């Protein structure tokens, strides 16, 4: 029997096609692949969020399950917005947010700029600098309370050594005027590498040809820095600020372990304040309204910021 190659191809092709028909269609597969993730997120994120919104209009308390749940309208929202303690914790959050971002951007950008000078071994040192970022904030925060101990703490000893002050004369986490800085220092220590890595990616993305062209035009190094380096790194830097902003608005673990919101309530950031309302005072309805206000604030600020970021990118 003589069989040409054409015949063989003809024989093989239908089989391949039928095999494909037996498989699922792309459309079905797409749904099959996406659905589980979406369902899980709906169940664990969106459903609770809707529940929070619903609870926020009631006077429900988890620790009194048998009490009658009443619909109280906007009462929770109004009392939160007129609560002095909550405004104070918003201020504490704003102070923390602004200073951590300013310090991390300044130090992070400087470090990235220096690393980009490509000295020998810069990869090794970058990796070392990055280490604190990935560690558990709760465990590390707890250990920092040891470093901050007045007499025996390493931090106080180092400050005393450098400034000549008595290491037992100040307490970073016990002193009302120092505690806000105690949390800013640890957060900056942990997260400066994050800003640094993003800036470094930005700096490395600038083609050398731009600097060469500027050099031909006899632009000074100073001018090159402000007209080339800064504008081209800016979108990266803004992205870093977005991430740090969202993360630090939610800040909980590190500060709970470091100061627990104290002394008094001077470092009681909104998340800690909210936890106190929800899980210590058990004012569930009230705390839910608080949670909704916080979520709307983050989401609103982030959306405005992303619009600004996109404008900078398009330039």
């Amino acid at each position, binding site marked *: 029997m003589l069989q040409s190659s054409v015949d063989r191809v003809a024989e093989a092709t239908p089989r391949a096609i039928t095999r494909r028909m037996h498989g699922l269609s792309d459309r079905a597969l797409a749904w099959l692949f996406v659905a589980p993730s*979406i369902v899980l997120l709906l169940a664990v994120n969106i459903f609770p969020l809707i529940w929070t919104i619903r609870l926020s209009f009631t006077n429900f308390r988890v620790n009194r399950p048998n009490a009658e749940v009443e619909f109280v309208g906007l009462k929770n929202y109004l009392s939160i917005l007129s609560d002095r303690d909550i405004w104070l914790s918003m201020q504490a959050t704003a102070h923390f947010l602004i200073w951590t971002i300013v310090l991390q951007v300044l130090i992070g950008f400087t470090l990235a700029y220096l690393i980009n000078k490509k000295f020998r071994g810069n990869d090794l040192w970058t990796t070392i600098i990055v280490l604190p970022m990935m560690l558990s904030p709760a465990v*590390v925060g707890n250990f920092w309370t040891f470093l901050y101990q007045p007499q025996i703490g390493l931090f106080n000893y180092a400050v005393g050594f450098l400034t000549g002050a008595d290491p037992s004369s100040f307490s970073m986490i016990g002193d009302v005027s120092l505690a806000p800085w105690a949390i800013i220092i640890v957060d900056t220590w942990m997260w400066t*590498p994050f800003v640094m890595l993003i800036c470094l990616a930005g700096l490395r993305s600038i083609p*050398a040809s731009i600097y060469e062209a500027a050099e031909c035009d006899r632009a000074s190094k100073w001018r090159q820095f402000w007209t080339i380096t800064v504008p081209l790194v800016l979108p990266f830097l803004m992205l870093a600020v977005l991430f740090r902003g969202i993360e630090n608005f939610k800040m909980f673990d590190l500060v*709970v372990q470091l100061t627990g919101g104290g002394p008094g309530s001077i470092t009681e950031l909104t998340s800690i304040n909210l936890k106190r309302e929800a899980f210590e005072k058990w004012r569930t309805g009230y705390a839910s309204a608080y949670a909704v206000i916080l979520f709307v604030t983050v989401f609103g600020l982030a959306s405005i910021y992303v619009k600004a970021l996109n404008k900078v990118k398009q330039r």
Partner: protein
Amino acid sequence: MSSYSVTEPSLRQKWSAGILVVLYALITILPLVWIIATSFKSPSDAIAYPPKTFFTPTVEGYVNVFTTRTRLSEEQLQAVGEPQTWYDRLVRKDGLVISGPSRFAERFTNSVIIGFGSTVLCIVLGTAAAYAFSRFKVPLKDDLLFFILSTRMMPPIAVAIPIFLMFRALGLSDTHAGMILLYTAVNLSLSVWLLKGFIDEIPIEYEEAALIDGYTRLQAFYKVVLPQAATGIASTAIFCLIFAWNEYAFAVLLTSGNAQTAPPFIPTIIGVSGQDWPAVAAGATLFLVPVMVFTILLRKHLLRGITFGAVRK
């Protein structure tokens, strides 16, 4: 370099930049070195003034973190008899006897189970969703992707109340299954976004070739895409693992006895008389060192992971 380049920094610039960066690195690494050093100190060395740089190392902290101890009087100590093992002998120096294991090993195991469980689930769900988003026409694709990302913006405390109620109703509170599900949901946004980036980078021609060769879509996914995406999947998995490993807020609010992980437990370690810093440091060292190793392994993909794939090198 033989040829002159206007963009190459001068040797002097390199040296001064190098010295400043090394100085910063040494300062920034000091607290971590201190944790590890403290874990090998005796309690009196740990709280000495001035802080001790040189000391006789001891594993007392490690013994203390795994055990509970009681102080006995002279007569009682004699009644107990001579210490049998090296760790008995170590605590007997301070007039203590080991009264049983601490809960540290249990909490650490919980961290491992919940960390790995949620990572596996996260990768399975995330790879499937990322593949679909990368290759298929999914209706409302951009909205769904943004929705997935936005779940990350919620402060954990804000959804903790209803999750607390929901878990109680479903019998999931303080269980491993509940925490695995929760951490999967928390990390899913990261997993989908990162993996979509990695799969986008695999040329679609490979799959088309496989489809023409008679593979079904599913076969092409298994035999062509998955092997190609292996590095991406591995680094995504490590990120999910680290984030689940480090998570504190949900763990402290939703677990107490059974499924509590190590982060809420380590700060509660106390000795027979007050805070036992070497034991805390020993617990912290055991908990943090694996993450440091993973960070070093991941260094090439670090930036990508922490920015959800927004910045790629």
